[in-house]
């Protein structure tokens, strides 16, 4: 008897399936070129202005461009949930490019060279040459150019209170910590993050790299080309972390700590410019990252430098126009407009050279830092082990006089980072 209810259910299932099967074939017959764009919330007004400019450039084409909100820092997560349903054109932070390429979500821009030549009359080489070399390098994976650089100020440098720390003292961790201790203040940095703490290793000549299969290469447990060992770098980091005037800050907590008023120096980025200016008042100053000491030698830290890109979905329906729109949103005029509207540092060389950009305080520090920086290439397995390692150092859980234990810990780190993606 209980099977009686099945016919009704089955009929409904079959009807639903039939509808679903038929739904696929009934594509809309209107010929408007539909493009969906995702950008940061704060960028919406600017983006709609730029999109209007793009539409005005091609009056013959009937565009239907939809703008949506998606933070650049989480774009990857949303896109990879369902690539075919994601936006056609989207802004994202440069560290996400490897996962996006790995998942086949980003369009290879070389394929659309013809479209650039026919419409805006540019070649891809010209577009690449217009932007800073390092930003183009960051947008290139396995010799393929995957995204248009939009902004180049995503890095960290040193904010300090010049009434406590002199400009000269700000050049080295030793002098910063000494001055801070004398003043009864602290100098802070995020140690438990693979983005920040890698600056010590990059400074000493170590590297991380991304293999074609998506795994990460790392040499931190060996000896760098400069002749420093990983153990020596860790010992220097332990010296800094163990100094009474040093404060290890949790990732994402920098603004709070600046506001607390206990700090006289902090490693952070342009997003904290406002907080630092308020807290340090007249003493507010910014400089490139300080040097640190390995075995008596002074070594500059090298920051991981990040960019903001605009990429195009590989599965975009109107991919030709989507690529042209992405290019338009990142060209010289658009980058200048973006700087005017949002104080975001450009990557376009001509935009960088304008007087307004050159006069901006925080961006000047970023540009100084960019000479001591690397493009961080790392896969998904990099972050957790390096974060954990940074926390171990920050808590002083390793003994600087026990090189064997440090080496073991470094080996475990490299093993975790370089592990295959299972």
């Amino acid at each position: 008897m209980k099977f009686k209810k099945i016919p009704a259910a089955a009929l409904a299932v079959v009807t639903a399936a039939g509808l679903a099967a038929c739904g696929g074939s009934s594509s809309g017959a209107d010929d408007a070129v539909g493009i969906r764009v995702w950008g940061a919330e704060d960028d919406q007004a600017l983006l709609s202005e730029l999109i209007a400019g793009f539409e005005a450039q091609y009056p013959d084409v009937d565009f239907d461009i939809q703008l949506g909100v998606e933070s650049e820092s989480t774009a990857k997560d949303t896109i990879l949930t369902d690539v075919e349903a994601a936006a056609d054109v989207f802004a994202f932070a440069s560290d996400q490019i490897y996962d996006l390429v790995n998942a086949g979500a980003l369009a290879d821009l070389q394929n659309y060279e013809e479209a650039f030549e026919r419409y805006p009359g540019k070649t891809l080489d010209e577009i690449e040459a217009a932007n800073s070399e390092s930003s183009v390098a960051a947008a290139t994976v396995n010799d393929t150019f995957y995204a248009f650089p939009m902004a180049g100020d995503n890095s960290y440098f040193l904010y300090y209170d010049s009434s406590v720390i002199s400009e000269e003292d700000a050049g080295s961790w030793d002098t910063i910590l000494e001055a801070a201790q004398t003043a009864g203040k602290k100098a802070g940095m995020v140690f438990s993050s693979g983005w920040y703490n890698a600056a010590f290793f990059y400074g000493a000549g170590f590297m991380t790299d991304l293999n074609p299969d998506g795994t990460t290469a790392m040499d931190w447990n060996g000896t760098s080309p400069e002749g420093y060992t990983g153990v020596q770098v860790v010992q220097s980091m332990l010296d800094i972390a163990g100094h009474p005037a040093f404060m290890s800050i949790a990732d994402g907590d920098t603004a709070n700590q600046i506001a607390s008023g206990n700090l006289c120096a902090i490693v952070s980025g342009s997003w904290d410019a406002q907080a630092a200016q308020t807290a340090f008042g007249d003493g507010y100053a910014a400089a490139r990252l300080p040097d640190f000491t390995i075995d008596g030698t002074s070594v500059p830290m090298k920051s991981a430098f990040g960019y903001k890109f605009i990429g195009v979905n590989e599965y975009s329906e109107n991919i030709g126009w989507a690529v042209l729109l992405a290019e338009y949103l990142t060209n010289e005029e658009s980058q200048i407009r973006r700087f005017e509207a949002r104080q975001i540092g450009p990557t376009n060389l001509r935009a960088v050279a304008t007087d307004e950009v050159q006069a901006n305080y925080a961006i000047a520090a970023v540009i100084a830092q960019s000479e001591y920086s690397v493009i961080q290439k790392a896969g998904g397995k990099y972050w957790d082990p390096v974060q954990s390692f940074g926390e171990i150092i920050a808590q002083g859980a390793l003994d600087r006089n026990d090189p064997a234990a440090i080496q073991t810990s470094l080996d475990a780190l490299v093993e975790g980072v370089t592990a295959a993606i299972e």
Partner: protein
Amino acid sequence: MKQDNLSAEMTSGGFFSDFCRAVTKGDLFVKLSMLWMGAGYARRKQYIKAALMTLFEIAVIVFTVQFAMEYVPKFGGLGSVMPEKTFNIETMKNEFNDYDNSFQILLFSLFSFVVWITAAAVWMYNMVSVYRLQLMEEAGVRIRTFKEDLISFKEEKFHITLLALPVLGVVIFTVVPILLLILVAFTNYDQNHMPPGGLFTWVGFQNFISLFGGGGLTVSFGYAFVRVLGWTLVWAFFATITTYIGGIVLSLLLNSKKTRAPRLWRTLFIATIAVPQFVSLLLVRNFFANGGIVNTICANIGLTDFLRNIGLVSTSYIPFLSAPGWAHVMIILINIWIGVPYQMLIATGVLMNLPTEQLESARVDGANKFQIFQKITMPYMLFVTGPALVTDFVKNINNFNVIYLLTENVYTTTNQVMANSQAKEVDLLVTWLFRLTQDYYNYKMASAIGIIVFIICAVFTLIAFNRMIKGDKEGTYQ
């Protein structure tokens, strides 16, 4: 009367034997119904039913040919054609080949299986039904008209009408997704095999082997799994017990005649429920952060230095939520604050229904308050709230909110082996699973862990409920 005998005869042997009897003993039209589902009905002049069954059969065949055949044949390997495209400058569009999407193949194949199983059941039921019509005709019983059949769905068969929609909903929204997730656990669906750019395929029990430490590359996964599982169980036990006892104690206090303004106190405690958890938990997380207000106070009153001197703390702050041990205890304590009001409400309700005659006679017999609590109140509480206690335990195994909101971005593990598996000491299986899918797209491992969580919860619930319901304890309290 005759009809009753007939039904008794028909339903005596169970569905499958009925079906076999229909196939073997049915007349020509009943047998023809195996091919044309409407045949038997048409023969008994049930033309509307015949048409409906024919339509159903056509729908299933169309579905099979048009939809299922596109996916099901690829189910064995989950697809092999990678996307390829050429750019057409005239249309400004890419022209794609007909590429495979492993996930779609998996999903739509599964859906097809569900439809087919349903269709097979309908087909078998149809056979039984038309054979029964044959018997009725032979016995000379009047066959109901279609209209009468329809009316019966709001009379004696009303339960079927009521259940049709929920059953359909459960199948589409619960059964299919669960089966899909179970299937994913046997594939290599992860970051490197992500549709549409890549294809994934079956790997058998490989993911479960990795989970338990058998895989070559994933030694750390097994290590992390055991520790995360251990903490999950410890957490579920303490979170359940502490809030349960806390709730009872609190409601006893509030119910005591000596308590003044019990309503005021009750309202205050319920206010904790009124504030959304993620607001209160994130605030508490900030209070107890390494540089948070509690740490500042502790440093100012000298508690931090005291703890440092006796060796409990090695950092310049108290790692309330950022060191193993400390964080474990803190999480359970904070959970008491969050969870006790709920238990208090339940306990208050139960205490109000305590059999007063038993309490009276105990008092007359000279039992003191503790004895009454131990011998009457507590056993009664346990009896009434036992099933809720089991549910709470299972809920706490999957208590995502408290753990995630209190530890995300605050707790950094210093155990490198755990970190190599993206796990932390304070992770529950669900929070670990969440991070694996959200940050690392490791769907296959997440599915495998999900199945394990399900098994643990199911086994525990079964055992606990069986124990609790076994024996006629109910009589004790009547």
